[in-house]
């Protein structure tokens, strides 16, 4: 049920989560000054505590607001619908978890915590705006906010040369891609005369000179994809990903692998389904305008999956490996965007929710091992089984989920996506997906194998790895959703049905 366009005052009550997060950010900024004289541990608590509370409140309101009908807010700038609401929850949960990661991480040990918390909170709010934007200006603004805060977060370890380099690469690649996207957006504005996605759709539908504007639209699509593809880290805009993921502090990497990537997908859906497609028939869409962007997205999906998986096989640094793994997963998620149906969007959302838990879990294990062993290299993971069986089992859960083995949640996610693809008569794509998953299994298993077996050749001084209770708690928290398998099925169904309500707003 579409309540229509709301003006500024009417929209405020729908906007509470974002407002809460922004106010929390400002409060933390002030608290940072208050906390100057205290010990580092106290400082962290003083900063992270209120942030968690703020995020919790925002989460609460986001869930409450989910019941309200769909509409567009602030004079058509931002949407309020099922799709956006689910993603809001995803971002808030990601932030909450990553904040907990930052509380205890060897990499961030000497660093002042205040700015990181402020940046993280800001990025969360900006991600929520980004995934709900209905206007080219909003998309660009929110995207840039996310980007700029991310650039700073990546370079947070100022003493570390790799971190600095990573953030330089990130910002330069990022600036190039957003400049190109902006140029494409400006051309789109010229073509259609409006910045609003719904207006763009009507303009493209009514275009008598459809054929003549075709080339322009093609250039626009490619340019805008440069910007969106950069955020999603899909081919051929993925070059920054391994270097940035490796150089950044691991909690930040964990965040980047979920937050901005998912928001990128949200923008993809909003831009293409909201601006370059229209609903037709039963929960399906058809393209508008002279460009077959479905084919382009298909190509990107295939290339991304394949490149991600194949390159991951060769990696020995686990952060780099997970970077390529997340590139591959972006390829799988993209498969859901290709099918031009509500089912595809549902599949994307389902995958994203599961992916959050899988990926954050894997990165948490990386953080824990780094705290103990001081390295991210695969060879230093040898024999972890002997030193901490718990850690190995949990890592096993995450890796099996990432592989897509039943009964783990990762299998469910892939099932959703492949089913949607098959039902849209794109069976070949599903076959490629399965093949890619098989390739992926190789390197995930390689990690597990190293952790289990090679411990026998390692000389003895392996003391048992003592895990901090907080880490244990977090590991459990992240592992449980991955195991739930059949239980999760019910929840996922509910969530995805709910996000189906995207269609009402388009």
């Amino acid at each position: 049920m579409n309540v229509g366009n709301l003006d500024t005052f009417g929209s405020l009550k729908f906007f509470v989560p974002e407002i809460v997060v922004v106010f929390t950010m400002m409060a933390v900024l002030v608290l940072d000054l208050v906390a100057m004289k205290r010990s580092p541990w106290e400082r962290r608590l003083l900063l992270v505590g209120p942030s968690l509370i703020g995020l919790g409140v925002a989460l609460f309101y986001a869930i409450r607001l989910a019941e309200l009908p769909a509409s567009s807010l602030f004079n058509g700038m931002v949407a309020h619908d099922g799709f956006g609401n689910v993603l809001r929850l995803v971002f808030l949960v990601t932030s909450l978890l990553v904040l907990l990661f930052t509380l205890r991480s060897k990499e961030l040990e000497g660093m002042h915590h205040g700015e990181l918390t402020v940046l993280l909170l800001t990025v969360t709010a900006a991600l929520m705006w980004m995934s709900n934007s209905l206007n080219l200006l909003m998309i660009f603004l929110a995207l840039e906010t996310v980007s700029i805060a991310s650039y700073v977060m990546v370079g947070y370890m100022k003493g570390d040369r790799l971190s600095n380099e990573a953030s330089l690469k990130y910002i330069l690649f990022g600036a190039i891609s957003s400049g190109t996207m902006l140029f494409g957006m400006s051309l789109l504005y010229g073509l259609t005369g409006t910045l609003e996605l719904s207006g763009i759709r009507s303009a493209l539908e009514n275009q008598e000179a459809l054929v003549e504007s075709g080339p322009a639209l093609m250039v626009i699509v490619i340019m805008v994809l440069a910007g969106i593809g950069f955020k999603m880290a899909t081919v051929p805009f993925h070059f920054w990903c391994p270097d940035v993921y490796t150089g950044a502090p691991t909690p930040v990497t964990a965040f980047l692998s979920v937050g901005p990537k998912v928001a990128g997908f949200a923008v993809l859906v909003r831009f293409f389904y909201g601006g370059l497609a229209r609903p037709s028939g039963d929960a399906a869409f058809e393209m508008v305008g002279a460009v077959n962007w479905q084919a382009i997205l298909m190509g990107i999906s295939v290339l991304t999956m394949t490149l991600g998986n194949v390159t991951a096989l060769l990696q020995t640094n686990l952060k780099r490996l997970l970077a390529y793994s997340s590139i591959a997963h972006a390829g799988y998620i993209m498969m859901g965007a290709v099918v031009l149906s509500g089912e595809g969007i549902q599949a994307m959302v389902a995958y994203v929710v599961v992916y959050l838990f899988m990926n954050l879990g894997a990165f948490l294990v990386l953080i824990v091992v780094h705290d103990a062993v001081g390295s991210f290299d695969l060879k230093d993971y040898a024999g972890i089984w002997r030193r901490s069986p718990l850690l190995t089992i949990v890592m096993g859960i995450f890796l099996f989920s990432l592989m897509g083995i039943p009964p783990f949640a990762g299998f469910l996610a892939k099932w959703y996506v492949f089913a949607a693809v098959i039902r849209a008569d794109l069976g070949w794509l599903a076959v490629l997906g399965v093949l890619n998953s098989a390739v992926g299994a190789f390197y995930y298993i390689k990690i597990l194998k190293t952790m289990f077996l090679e411990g026998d050749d390692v000389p003895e001084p392996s003391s048992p790895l003592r895990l901090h209770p907080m880490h244990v708690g977090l590991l459990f928290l992240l592992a449980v959703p991955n195991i739930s398998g059949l239980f999760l099925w019910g929840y996922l169904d509910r969530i995805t049905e709910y996000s189906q309500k995207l269609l009402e707003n388009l």
Partner: protein
Amino acid sequence: MESLAPRILFWFFAALMLGSALIVVHGRNLVHSAFALLATFFSAAVFYAFLGADFLAGAQVLIYVGGILILLLFGVMLTNRIFDVNLRTETFQVAPSALVAAGVFGMLTLLILKTPWRQVSLVEEGPTTEKIGSLLVTTYLLPFEIASVLLLVALLGAAMLVRRRSDL
């Protein structure tokens, strides 16, 4: 019969803009490039004035020339001693890149000339400041507020990255 003066001015500033842009991308000396960028930004401001965007022209000069360019010059002066902050050790050769750039330009020009831009004849002339101001607090209120968050974060981030003591 339109007067010739506007056209001449237009072409003059277009030439200035593109010529200085060429120095920016091709010049050997970093300081020369930075100053050439000044001319590019200024010519863009002149273009905005031509298009009736008086507020924007002022904003361009104030922010781009008065802010960004000064910042760039600081950056150039502070890092231009012995070591260059080089991003990569091998880059593309000049000739193929020029070809690619020329190709892109050709394609874009073709696009521009071929596409039927739907032009509107009714245009209100006059100062835009008041209109933009009222737009910013009505239709575009949300982006306006978000931009302020962005500015805060950029300020914070830049200051944090540059300060000396790592534990402060």
